[in-house]
């Protein structure tokens, strides 16, 4: 019986069928390859199996039972592990934690995360393919190869019944690709089922037992690998016969050097001491495994990476010029990763092509339209018209648009990284043909690719790079593929060295904050008449700010922001005040304030996630609404003379220290534990770090954010309650400007405004710094209006310092 069976799967987007009536089954111990052109529906099918997308109709059966896989978590529970083409590791979390998010944390006392155990587990799980990696490292610090290997190792460690691989070798160099394929084969031999998507047909034939072909959302062929051959398969994929054999072209021999690269090295060492000389009309293919520096060389030549050395374009040295100047001189670069570095999704196809060719000034629409339509025709871009949003085009057509952008700039030398990565066979052939035609008309082309077939079929000359150096050069006609690959292979020992030489960074920021805080404390102690009392006062005055900064810190860590907290603070204080005046006991009053805060916060989060409006906008709105409600509900009157019971919340002094301080400190401790040791806390980091990747491990913004906001609101409710208790009265303007102070404290304390990073310890130090600064200024008799000025300077210097630390 088949392990996974799909029957009658339909899925359409905006009226266009992406999949129609797909039937497919995969058996245990079998490798099924899924092939098809870009836009054939492969990705959609994988998303459905992975639980990322729900089909419009049709059924999924696992082990004969119908299942409803509506989220990634249930897919994994059913025994399906998916490795996607692009890394889905959460960049701000350690590898160990990335592993834990997939398999669940190892807990201590049933709720507290046991970090050493989590790390041990990740180490043993990663050992199969990525034994070299330090599991405490941030995933974001890994390169593409390491990421892919780690993901695959983790997926294999899941021991899934079905392993789904989407273009697993696209980012990998030959050596690593082979290593990976070997382990997939072993896995299938041991009884696992594999669904495998690839554009590299050699891999498909060497690996697959059966092959399924998708075309325009339909399954057009399914059979054993032996029943077909390469040509037939390609013909089935594209619906017409296409020759994919390597073609040589007669080259117009012009002995005129266009580009001369001498002793060229990038500052980061990704490529070093490279010498290349290109003739006019020549196509030069740079081959290398990922990380070999062939792509880095393209970027460095284009001026996008700092580099040294000489770069002569028709005799002029461009080595010292900026990327823009080089482009104007005729050296044009086409980026490799179109999704992240190529396409502007907010612009139309036409604009995407024309961008960079126009002047900064007046747009000449008619001239531009003519050029764009011409390019669309010559490149065979399949688009309705130039105004069509680029997101609606298939990958191959997007790649053509990118190429068109480069060509419109009328280059003498074209630098292309991975000209056909993730592009279907037909589009690939068209792109190659076009590049050859351009070269025949005198354009010089230097391209980098990890696809050896492409290198051999497109170039006149082939160069191989390894560890940043150019290690071999052949004319394409006489190049031996074995020799090229052999040269490109890294010397194993060296690779291990370069990977294991990672050191753990010292937390400079926390140290700096500590030092500044200690010096401020010393200054104040020296100046204040009663140092101890002064220190206590500083703590008391900033206790509420600490709670507020922790509150907003949570939301920022979760990748969002809340600027309504000042109003919410006032609102919960007003409600607490009203309740107290109505004669309710402090316990009820406190519950009302906390409930009001939590509700208000949750509402912010709920609106933001449901409407998918940016949280700044939502909380900007609720900020006005909550402030309005304060005045409406209080009738604009201050609430005075709160009861002694309520005041005791702030003023009673158990063990000689005011309760306010106790409460603030225990809140801090609770938040420290929550952020570091609880699953909810870690989920906030996960969502803040990379929301899309978090979805793949079953953590959605929808599930986390409203609660992060509610937690923030709860703390703000507490802050409002304590503020009211402390002063024994509530004024209607309470909390105005509080949000800025709290955000400033969190940011100074190292909470990353983009989410995913920050700690309770840092926040406490940030609050302390702000409080001590204000205190010290007063003690130094500095006029009051300097305070804002100093606060601004402190925030800015923290930011600049942090940036320098990151670059180091």
């Amino acid at each position, binding site marked *: 019986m088949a392990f996974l069976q799909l029957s009658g799967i339909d899925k359409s987007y905006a009226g266009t069928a992406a999949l129609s009536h797909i039937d497919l089954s995969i058996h245990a111990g079998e490798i099924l390859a899924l092939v098809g052109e870009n836009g054939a529906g492969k990705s959609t099918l994988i998303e459905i199996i992975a639980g990322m997308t729900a089909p419009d109709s049709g059924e999924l059966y696992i082990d004969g039972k119908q299942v409803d896989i509506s989220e990634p978590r249930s897919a994994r529970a059913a025994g399906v592990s998916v490795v996607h083409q692009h890394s889905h590791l959460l960049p701000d979390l350690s590898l160990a934690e990335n592993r834990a998010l997939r398999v669940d944390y190892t807990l201590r006392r049933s709720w507290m995360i046991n970090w050493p155990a989590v790390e041990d587990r990740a180490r043993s799980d990663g050992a199969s393919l990525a034994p070299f990696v330090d599991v405490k490292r941030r995933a974001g610090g890994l390169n593409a190869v390491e990421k892919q290997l780690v993901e695959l190792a983790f997926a294999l460690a899941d021991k899934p019944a079905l392993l789904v691989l989407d273009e697993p070798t696209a980012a990998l160099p030959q050596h690593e690709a082979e290593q990976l394929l070997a382990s997939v084969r072993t896995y299938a031999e041991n009884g696992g089922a594999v669904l495998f998507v690839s554009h590299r047909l050699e891999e498909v034939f060497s690996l697959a037992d059966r092959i399924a072909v998708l075309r325009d959302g339909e399954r057009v062929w399914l059979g054993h690998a032996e029943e077909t051959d390469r040509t037939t398969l390609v013909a089935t994929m594209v619906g017409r016969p296409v020759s994919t054999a390597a073609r040589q072209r007669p080259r117009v021999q012009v002995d005129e050097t266009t580009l001369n690269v001498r002793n060229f090295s990038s500052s980061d060492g990704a490529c070093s001491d490279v010498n290349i000389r290109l003739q006019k009309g020549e196509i030069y293919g740079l081959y290398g495994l990922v990380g070999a520096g062939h792509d880095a060389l393209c970027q460095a030549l284009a001026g996008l990476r700092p580099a040294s050395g000489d770069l002569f374009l028709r005799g002029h040295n461009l080595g010292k010029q900026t990327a823009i100047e080089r482009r104007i001189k005729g050296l044009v670069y086409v980026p490799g990763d179109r999704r992240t570095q190529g396409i502007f*999704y907010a612009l139309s196809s036409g604009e995407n092509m024309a961008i960079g060719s126009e002047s900064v000034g007046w747009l000449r629409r008619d001239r531009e339209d003519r050029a764009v339509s011409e390019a669309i025709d010559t490149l065979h871009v399949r688009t309705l018209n130039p105004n069509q949003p680029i997101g609606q085009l298939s990958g191959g057509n997007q790649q053509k648009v990118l190429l068109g952008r480069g060509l419109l700039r009328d280059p003498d030398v074209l630098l292309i990284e991975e000209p056909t990565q993730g592009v279907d066979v037909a589009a690939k052939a068209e792109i190659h043909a076009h590049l050859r035609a351009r070269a025949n008309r005198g354009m010089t082309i230097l391209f980098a690719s990890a696809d050896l077939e492409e290198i051999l079929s497109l170039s006149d000359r082939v160069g191989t790079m390894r560890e940043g150096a150019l290690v071999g050069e052949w004319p394409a006609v006489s190049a031996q593929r074995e020799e090229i690959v052999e040269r490109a292979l890294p010397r194993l020992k060296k690779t291990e060295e370069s990977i294991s030489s990672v050191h753990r960074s010292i937390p400079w920021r926390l140290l700096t904050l500590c030092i500044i805080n200690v010096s401020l404390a010393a200054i104040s102690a020296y100046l204040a008449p009663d140092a101890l009392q002064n220190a206590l006062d500083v703590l008391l005055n900033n206790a509420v700010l600490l709670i507020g900064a922790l509150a907003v810190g949570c939301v920022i860590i979760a990748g969002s922001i809340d600027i309504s907290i000042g109003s919410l603070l006032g609102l919960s204080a007003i409600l607490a005040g009203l309740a107290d005046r109505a004669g309710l006991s402090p316990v009820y009053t406190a519950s009302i304030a906390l409930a009001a805060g939590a509700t208000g916060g949750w509402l912010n989060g709920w609106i933001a996630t449901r409407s998918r409006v940016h949280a700044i906008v939502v909380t900007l709105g609720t900020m006005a609404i909550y402030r309005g409600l304060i005045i409406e509900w209080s009738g604009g009157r201050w609430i005075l003379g709160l009861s002694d019971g309520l005041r005791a919340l702030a003023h009673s002094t158990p063990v000689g220290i005011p309760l306010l301080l106790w409460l603030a400190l225990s809140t801090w401790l609770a938040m420290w534990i929550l952020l570091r040791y609880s699953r909810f806390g870690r989920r906030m980091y996960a969502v803040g770090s990379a929301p899309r990747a978090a979805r793949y491990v079953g953590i959605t913004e929808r599930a986390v954010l409203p609660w992060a906001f509610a937690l923030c609101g709860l703390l703000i409710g507490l802050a409002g309650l304590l503020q009211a208790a402390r002063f024994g009265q509530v004024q209607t303007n309470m909390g105005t400007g509080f949000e800025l102070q709290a955000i400033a404290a969190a940011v100074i304390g190292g909470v990353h*405004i983009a989410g995913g990073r920050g700690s309770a310890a840092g926040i406490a130090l940030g609050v302390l710094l702000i409080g001590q600064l204000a205190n010290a200024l007063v003690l130094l008799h500095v006029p009051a209006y*300097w305070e804002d*000025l100093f606060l601004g300077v402190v925030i800015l210097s923290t930011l600049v310092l942090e940036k320098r630390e990151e670059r180091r």
Partner: protein
Amino acid sequence: MKRESGLLLTLIILVAAMSVLSPYFLRTGNLLGLTRHLAEVGIIACAMTCIIATSGIDLSVGSLLGLTSIALGYASLAWDPASGIAIAFATGLLGGLFNGALIAHFALPPLVVTLATMALFRGLAMTISQAQPVSDFAPIFDWIGQGTTASIPTQLWIWCIVYTTSWVVLERTGYGRYLRAIGDNSRAARAATLPVKRILLSAYAAMGLLCALAGIVYTARVSTARADAGTGLELEVITAVVLGGTSITGGRASLVGTLLGVLILGVVRNGASLAGVPSVWQAIIAGVILIAAAALNHRLTDRGTAH
């Protein structure tokens, strides 16, 4: 365009409703008075639209307005109105360049940078002026802030010029396209060798200049230079821009929408005031409108780009 027509319809319905509710609403005096007070928000909103298009934000505009107001006040008292205006523009430009340099060259997040400069500029304005307001301005300021040109308030003309220029820049020049491209995908913009740093720097510098212009208009309108001028202005401006449909995550910008956003907020405030709705409720209504419009906006654009 779909969204803009929705906003226009909203505006028309609001105007109709207001004129039913209050007989005074449609009087030219009222309408012109209304625009007089919208000019500062309107001017800054033009630049804010461009900044938000780059996926940036500028929270320091209110403070910078206060700082330029003080610079204008002191300089025109010490010398003459012309140098006062020149120094106000220079101050605005410097402030904008400072923001821009930190954001473009140090690649720092705009939200935090301008949060810091918001405190910094306000602190500077307070320190320079010792928190004392300056008044007694030359008659030229009365003409800008109180007077009319061709029977239309002078600052309305200024706003029109700024708006038209911004529209041309955003919609009809390569610069405008670069702004949107940077906001949409800054890595791609760098890889396409667009002058990203210079564009960002100049956008924030332009914002500084327009803050100075708005500062001059504000100072002329209240004929006093105050360090606390423009407090809370940033929120009003951002509300108008977002209401107009410019996406806070960058890449999409609509100046037509911004204009309608400014007008809608102004009409709601003015009409509600005329109809006797207390200002507390006006704030609440503005908040609700903002969230509802942004949610609606999101639905419309979502439908357009589904793939």
